[in-house]
C-alpha cells in the first residue's frame, strides 16, 4: 500500500515549484542529516555522501513538476536519494551486503535467554522465578526526561547497525509511518519491522541499564 501524501505536502510542493527558497531550506533542515547518513551507507566517504545528497536535491527540484503525490514528498525525496546513492556506490566498486547495513544479529533473541526457564522448568520459556523486571513508573520524571537520558538514547542509537539506526530515527524521532520508512529505505514490510524491533529493544535495554544504575 502506498502512503498518501502528508496533509502539508501539497502546499510545500507548490512552494518548491514556485522557487520558494524558505520551503527548500525547511526541507533541507528536516531531512538533511538523515539524507547524509543514508547516502553514507552506500558510498565510501562523507564527502561523496555530500555530493550524492546535493545531486539528489537537484533531482528533486528537476522532477518536482512531475511529482504526483502518490507517496509522501519525503518518501519520494528519499527514493531519489537512495537510487543515486546506490548507483554511485556501484560506480565506486563498492558493494555493501545487506547484513552489513542491517546487522548480522537479526535472527538472534533480543533478550538474555537466561531470563527464561529452560525445557526442564515448570513453565518452559516463561520468566524464571528470579527474573524481575521493574517498571519505570517509580522513576522521577526529571531523571527519566533529563539530558543524561537523552544522551543514553543517542549513544544507544549511535552504536546500532546503520539501517537499524535509521529506521528508529525515521520512525520514532521524526515520526514517519512504517509505509513511508519502508518505501524510503527500500525495505520489505517485514524487514522494516524486524529492524525497528531490534533497534527499540536495544534502546530499551540501554535505558533500563541506566535507570537501574
Amino acid at each position, binding site marked *: 500500500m502506498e502512503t498518501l501524501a502528508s496533509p502539508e505536502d501539497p502546499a510545500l510542493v507548490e512552494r518548491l515549484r514556485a522557487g520558494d*527558497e524558505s520551503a527548500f531550506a525547511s526541507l*533541507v533542515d528536516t531531512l*538533511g542529516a538523515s539524507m547524509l547518513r543514508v547516502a553514507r551507507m552506500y558510498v565510501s566517504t562523507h564527502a561523496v555522501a555530500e555530493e550524492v*545528497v*546535493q545531486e539528489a536535491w537537484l533531482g528533486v527540484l528537476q522532477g518536482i513538476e512531475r511529482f504526483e503525490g502518490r507517496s509522501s514528498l519525503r518518501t519520494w525525496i528519499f527514493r531519489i536519494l537512495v537510487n543515486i546513492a546506490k548507483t554511485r556506490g556501484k560506480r565506486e566498486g563498492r558493494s555493501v551486503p545487506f547484513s552489513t547495513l542491517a546487522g548480522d544479529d537479526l535472527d538472534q533473541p533480543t*533478550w538474555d535467554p537466561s531470563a527464561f526457564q529452560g525445557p526442564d522448568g515448570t513453565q518452559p520459556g*516463561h520468566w524464571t522465578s528470579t527474573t524481575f523486571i521493574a517498571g519505570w513508573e517509580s522513576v522521577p520524571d526529571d531523571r527519566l*526526561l533529563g539530558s543524561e537520558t537523552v544522551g543514553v538514547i543517542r549513544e544507544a542509537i549511535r552504536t546500532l547497525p546503520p539501517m537499524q539506526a535509521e529506521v528508529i530515527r525515521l520512525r*520514532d524521532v521524526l515520526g514517519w509511518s512504517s509505509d513511508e520508512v519502508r518505501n524510503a529505505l527500500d525495505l520489505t514490510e517485514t524487514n522494516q519491522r524486524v529492524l525497528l*524491533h531490534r533497534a527499540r529493544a536495544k534502546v530499551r535495554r540501554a535505558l533500563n541499564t541506566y535507570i537501574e544504575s
Partner: protein
Amino acid sequence: MRKKDVACRDLVELVTDYIEGALPRRVRVGVDRHLERCPGCRTVIAQMRETIWMTGTITEDQIPADYRESLLMAFRGWKSRR
C-alpha cells in the same frame, strides 16, 4: 497454563509487531490473554512504549552550516536556470 499459551520468551520478540498492530488476529488474541496474567510481560510492553515515547524527545542532528549554504546555492542555481 494451557499448552497453547505464548511463552514469555516468544512474546518479548512479538512486542513491536503487537504495538504496530501487525500480528495476525489469532496471535494477537493469544498475546492479550497472556498479558492479562503475566505482570513481567506487561512491564516489558510498558517499557517498550515508554522507550518509543522517550526516543521521540531527542532532536535530530543539524547539517553543518557551510554544507547547508552550498545546498541553498544549488537551489538558487536551479532557480536561475529555469
